[in-house]
């Protein structure tokens, strides 16, 4: 099997509208969560979120593109532009024919659904814009990336709630590793910070009304975010031959299903996914210096995840660092694993560990080094990125310094 490396990264999220801005915010432990600015916010009980602010779609896209691009597609295209520019690849001929794009999203064009339901239900109109379907479909973002960059190989969208991006990137990794494609564009995007999108989450009663404080004893729930992360996964020899800058190596992944409960997490499912990723990567637990936690800030996730880490790593669990960057950018749902992979790249490449901010009180059930409140410098060989979705679908990726 071939080796797979990351040669491009791009993002837009509540912490920044590029990778350098995002990593700087993570290093500084900045919080991108604030008061939601959206229509009918006064009818919401949950009024905070990680919104992408100061983003003007009109500056990036023309009128015809805007008619077709939901916000989740806009985010994807912004992130893809940065990633593919960094990789320095042009897709033509045989490379184009085998290169594709696999992206994750949980909801797709949620605000397009929301706006058009308003039109027909609230305003009682009987006519909607003809592009509603091509705009809201979950694969719209992947398709527009394929068209923009001439990617003619395997392209599709993966939807596994909060693990969508990790499942998508695992697919892309597998395709490059097996030699199906030399290059795959992958990651994920989400944009459901509209009235209906927030109201739906509010219904579950797992949302915090003040802050996301993963692992802290006084944590009181998750906070939604929005944005995208996109990467270029490339065959190692291909990248070396063209002298590309390599950000990190993707060394393994695993996927498991709890087969237990539609919302409650399972320690065994999470542990099997982490252990499986180590096995697939051929690395020992002791080599792992950092885990980017799923770390949603809910009571159930954080203690279950910590218990799973303790099971998998034994005594080494007390020596590794584990942080949840959701404390800064919120939970990007189907896009979250992609943005969080940036923290893993920063750990192995730059030796900077992003913190868990908002950490106020130790919780004996989360007694690990959660890198509270301030980033830290440390040499890390291997990092894991955890994603444990509603529905019990787990996906863990392993990155290694190169």
């Amino acid at each position, binding site marked *: 099997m071939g080796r797979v490396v990351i040669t491009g990264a791009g993002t837009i999220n509540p912490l920044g509208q590029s990778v350098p801005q995002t990593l700087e915010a993570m290093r500084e432990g900045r919080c991108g969560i604030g008061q939601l600015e959206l229509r009918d916010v006064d009818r919401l009980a949950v009024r905070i979120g990680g919104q992408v602010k100061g983003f003007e779609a009109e500056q990036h896209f023309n009128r*015809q593109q805007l*008619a077709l691009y939901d916000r989740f597609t806009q985010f994807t295209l912004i992130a893809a532009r940065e990633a593919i520019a960094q990789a320095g690849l042009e897709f033509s001929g045989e490379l184009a024919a085998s290169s594709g794009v696999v992206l994750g999203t949980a909801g797709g064009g949620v605000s397009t659904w929301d706006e058009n339901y308003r039109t027909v239900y609230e305003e009682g109109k009987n*006519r909607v*814009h*003809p*592009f509603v379907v091509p705009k809201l479909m979950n694969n719209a973002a992947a398709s527009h990336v394929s068209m923009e960059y001439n990617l003619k190989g395997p392209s599709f969208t993966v939807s596994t709630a909060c693990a969508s991006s990790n499942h998508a990137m695992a697919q892309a990794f597998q395709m490059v590793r097996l030699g199906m494609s030399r290059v795959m564009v992958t990651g994920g995007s989400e944009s459901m910070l509209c009235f209906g999108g927030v109201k739906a989450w509010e219904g579950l009663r797992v949302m915090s009304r003040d802050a996301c404080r993963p692992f802290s004893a006084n944590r009181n729930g998750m906070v939604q975010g929005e944005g995208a992360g996109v990467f270029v996964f490339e065959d190692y020899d291909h990248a070396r031959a063209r002298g590309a800058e390599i950000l990190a190596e993707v060394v393994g992944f695993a996927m498991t299903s709890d087969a237990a409960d539609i919302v409650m997490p399972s320690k065994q499912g999470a542990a099997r996914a982490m252990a499986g990723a180590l096995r697939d990567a051929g690395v020992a637990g002791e080599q792992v210096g950092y885990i980017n936690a799923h770390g949603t800030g809910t009571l159930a996730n954080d203690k279950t995840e910590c218990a799973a880490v303790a099971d998998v790593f034994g005594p080494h669990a007390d020596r590794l660092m584990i942080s949840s960057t959701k404390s800064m950018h919120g939970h990007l749902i189907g896009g979250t694993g992609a943005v969080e992979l940036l923290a893993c790249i920063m750990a192995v490449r730059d030796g900077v560990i992003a913190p868990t901010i908002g950490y106020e009180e130790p919780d004996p059930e989360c007694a690990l080094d959660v890198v509270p409140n301030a980033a830290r410098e440390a040499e890390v060989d291997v990092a894991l990125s955890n994603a444990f979705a509603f529905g019990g679908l787990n996906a863990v990726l392993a990155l290694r310094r190169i």
Partner: protein
Amino acid sequence: MEMTNVRDRVIRIIAEQAVLEPSDIRPEATLDELGIDSLGVVESIFAIEEAFDISVPFNANEPQASDFDISSVDTIVAGIERLIAEQHG
């Protein structure tokens, strides 16, 4: 509704879709000549329906089947004038 005004408004909608100036839209031009593809046709029809509060009987699967003739700017304007008369007359 003032019918000469209808022509100007239809031409503005078509021009916007074609990314042209209204003065560049010849009455005998076909949508194809103006570079408007099938998605552009349905978007133009939506804009026309919104602008004149009419319903245009057009199915993209059988564009010739309805009475609404989209073969040129002129036939579109004539069709819309007729629909306005029928639906608001």
